């Protein structure tokens, strides 16, 4: 018997648009996963705390504000602090409006994968399934 995959869909920062976040939340749900939606305007500290308490396998961050270069690495740092470990067992994904030239920087700072605006939800779900960092069996 395999356990249920849990995902935190998080909205860091100040942008007030959660259409994208809701689309990916529904896609994960339809793929049989449990999605905790953070609601708008969350700080990196709050998102890290949520990820810990909800014991999620995946943190999927949706960001449109342009502040990804500062906010997303901070989520990673906070999560490491919360978990007391540099080796995170959580897959961290980002999507939204992130220019291609920023992707390398984000990956260097602990974001496992970045999905551009054109990515299909199927692709994201498939990637998520195959890159989990914790056993699901």
């Amino acid at each position, binding site marked *: 018997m395999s356990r*249920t995959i849990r995902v935190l869909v998080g909205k860091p920062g100040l942008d007030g648009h959660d259409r994208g976040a809701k689309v990916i939340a529904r896609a994960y749900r339809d793929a049989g996963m*449990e999605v905790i*939606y953070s609601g708008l305007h969350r700080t990196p500290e709050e998102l890290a705390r949520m990820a810990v*308490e909800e014991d999620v396998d995946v943190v999927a961050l949706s960001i449109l504000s342009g502040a990804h270069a500062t906010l997303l690495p901070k989520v990673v740092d906070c999560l490491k602090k919360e978990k007391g470990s540099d080796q995170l067992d959580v897959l961290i994904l980002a999507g939204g409006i992130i220019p291609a030239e920023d992707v390398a920087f984000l990956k260097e700072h602990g974001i496992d994968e970045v999905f551009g605006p054109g990515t299909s939800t199927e692709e994201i779900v498939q990637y998520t399934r195959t890159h989990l960092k914790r056993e699901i069996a």
Partner: protein
Amino acid sequence: MDVEEILEGIEAKKRTYLARAISLVEDGSPLGREVVARAFKSKKNAKVLGITGAPGVGKSTLVDGLIGKLRERGGSVGVIAVDPSSPFTGGAILGDRVRMRSRTLDEGVFFRSLATRGHLGGLSRHTAEVIVLMDAFGFDYIVVETVGVGQSEVDVMKYAHSVVVVLAPGLGDDIQAIKAGILEIGDVLCVNKADLPGAERTRKELEMMLGLKEFEGWKPPVVETIASSGEGLDRLLESVLQHQDYLVASGLLEKKVRESHHAVLVEYVKRETLDKIMEKAESDGTLDRILRDLVEGAGDPESGARALVEKYFGTTI
């Protein structure tokens, strides 16, 4: 992670361990069961409050406000918020955190969203065990928000010491709730969204209904709140705490605790007997054979059931 490590983590109030223990329990793992069995002995008898009511009446917003009030009084709070799983995919969107605006980073608060995973009754199958874990962690209060209930999802009354039934004006759900018997389980009745037209009427209807009934000892108060602004929350909490005092003074608390242990015990006995019988019967083909007989008219359910029990217990009880 083994049992000792998890228990030590919970003892040391490390939230990562509590969080992982809850997952193990929700996933039905033997390790999780072992942890709960051991954690049971280090329970500290938290006060358990249930918040229930139709979808969208403002349960989560109220919980957010109540957490603040409880924290102001110095109490620590564990929250369990349950939302339904999709019957088709098993997935779920757990959205109760959206309304938790103020206390996400408060060290005295721990919030966990659970999905029903097919369990009926308004809670997850293992909510009782999650309460045990939170209690062992040392929260003074444990607040349980049920799914938005429609009909008869009243499991929360088994595990919460005080149940707040939340209604809102204008949804027509007051009448629904009365029909469904959900009001019956309320120790406190809360008319939320008192800023909207019709709140006064809903309150009066409730009070009239209550007036028609006989109560011994405790008559559920009706409290109006505006969860979104915080108005009425002090009165709501006051009513809940009065109910807790009443439970202690009247000796009813002990009875309630006993009843909730009873409910859990029944679940466990079922798991150790019924579930195991059905699993075995399924895997060794016995179930299939009996069902075939029933379909062909060669057997009857009564004899089939007896045969199953006898086969795996060696005797009918």
